């Protein structure tokens, strides 16, 4: 791990991080604020006004009639896939792909540090940034929810929701880091760093639109994060979350290994 590089990353990325935290919080707080304990189906009625396919594509559904089920269904389905995904892709590209692309990676590699140190530092920074994004979003969301609806939130389940979403993002971070790191054709790096994570998202959306497309869920790892398996809690939820973390770890390990050995045209 390289301290100077961590510091430099922080300076160059903290604004991006704050913007995405604010966007996430905005949506989360609006959704929580719209919760009406006396008329739990109100949101469903509101959603019924929209085209059916659209609602299905973004996966909105009431998971159960509690506040936790409401948050799980409306925030931890589509929105959680959307904004942190953009953040993760952008940050992955900034940390490696961009520097290789424009040649400034030379000023990281041509220093008395191993390539592995440099790339592990970047991977670590990406994971920490994603982790802190989820941590703050979870805690601030929790405080807000408790303040608005005391004693209604199942805190254990809420924590599991966030932990599951975070494990999904360990995978997504691994995937976008891998894409940003290993492709040699520099002009393709950005394209692929976007194409894979977003492609899986589209698969994930199509899965829910139509029964005939349901098989697509086997082609997108994102479907391994399924909040509906928390209402009620199933063991599969834990297993699938662990699988996501494992796949993410493998992608990170591969990215580091490949980057350490590959030709860099700087």
């Amino acid at each position, binding site marked *: 791990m*390289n301290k100077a590089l961590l510091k430099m990353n922080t300076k*160059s990325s903290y604004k991006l991080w704050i913007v995405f935290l604010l966007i996430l919080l905005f949506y989360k707080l609006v959704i929580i604020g719209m919760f009406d304990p006396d008329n739990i189906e109100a949101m469903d009625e509101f959603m019924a006004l929209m085209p059916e396919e659209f609602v299905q594509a973004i996966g909105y559904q009431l998971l159960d009639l509690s506040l936790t089920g409401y948050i799980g269904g409306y925030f931890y389905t589509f929105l959680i896939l959307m904004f942190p995904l953009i953040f993760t892709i952008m940050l992955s590209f900034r940390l490696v792909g961009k520097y290789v692309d424009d040649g400034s990676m030379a*000023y990281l590699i041509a220093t008395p540090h191993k390539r592995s140190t440099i790339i592990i530092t970047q991977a670590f920074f990406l994971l920490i940034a994603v982790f802190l994004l989820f941590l703050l979003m979870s805690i601030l969301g929790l405080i807000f929810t408790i303040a608005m609806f005391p004693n209604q939130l199942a805190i254990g389940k809420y924590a599991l929701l966030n932990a599951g979403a975070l494990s999904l993002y360990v995978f997504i971070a691994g995937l976008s880091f891998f894409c940003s790191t290993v492709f040699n054709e520099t002009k393709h790096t950005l394209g692929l760093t976007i194409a894979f994570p977003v492609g899986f998202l589209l698969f994930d959306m199509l899965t829910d639109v139509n029964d005939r497309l349901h098989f697509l869920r086997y082609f997108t790892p994102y479907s391994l994060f399924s909040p509906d398996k928390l209402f009620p809690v199933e063991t599969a939820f834990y297993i699938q979350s662990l699988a996501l973390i494992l796949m993410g770890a493998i992608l990170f390990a591969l990215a580091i290994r490949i980057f350490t050995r590959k030709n860099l045209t*700087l």
Partner: protein
Amino acid sequence: MIDVRNLTKSYGPKRGIFDLSFFVQEGEIFGFLGPNGAGKTTTIRQLLGFIHPDNGSAYIHGLRVFEDAHIIQKDVGYIAGEIAFFDHMTGDEFLRFQAEMRGMNDFSRYNNLIELLEFNPKTSIRKMSKGTKQKLAIVAAFMHDPSIYILDEPTSGLDPLMQSKFVQLVHKEKKRGKTILMSSHNFEEVERTCDRALIIKHGEKMVLEDVNALKQRQRKVFVVHFDTDEERRRFNTEGFTVENTRNNELEIAVSGDVNEFIKRLSKCTLKGIDIKKQSLEEVFMEYYKDDEHE
């Protein structure tokens, strides 16, 4: 010091480098000369450990350039051929970041270099001109006082005044015992700066020779403007090659010693005299024409 053995990296026919070997001695300024696309940058990238060779090997201080790059780097100052910095920083932020990456604490050279190059480090890198960026790259390569410099076209983008300041800087480093490898596509620059020069073309070694010897063999073309046509006719061209005659103007090629030429010129009245800039290709061509004659 820098030991390149049979290095090959092919990017297609005549692109890349092919079976290149040379040795840079400690304390010398080694010029690496060739037209654009000759393979200079490809060689330098391998010395920095950025790319693997297809064949052959290279060592710096006896260490393998790819595997031991992080050890070699403690003692190397590098200027890239195509420089890119981290745009979001100012020059000063960038240099301090590099200093931190290198564990450098003594900023006296940093300050001296900034003063020497008249460089304002407080500007944002994004707003810097090409020449200013080149100065930044020079400061970054020299400030940590390495013992080996690997410089890929270090003067590109600098104005002539800065170029000669840079040459002085390089000479000063040589006096301090440093080893310098610098690439260039400019014959004059290598002539002014280097002790020995390696000339490559299409990735293959053409000549590796003492710069003084190269100079001796090089022909220079002088464009002489005589005061009048008569003056021109009065000039004795015996022993020189006249390349072109135009009214009161002569283009005369002189190889080796110029003293006789100057002596004869001093007898005539001139309007002016120029040295015709020769492209590297022309220098090569002449060099090999001479070779064939022998």
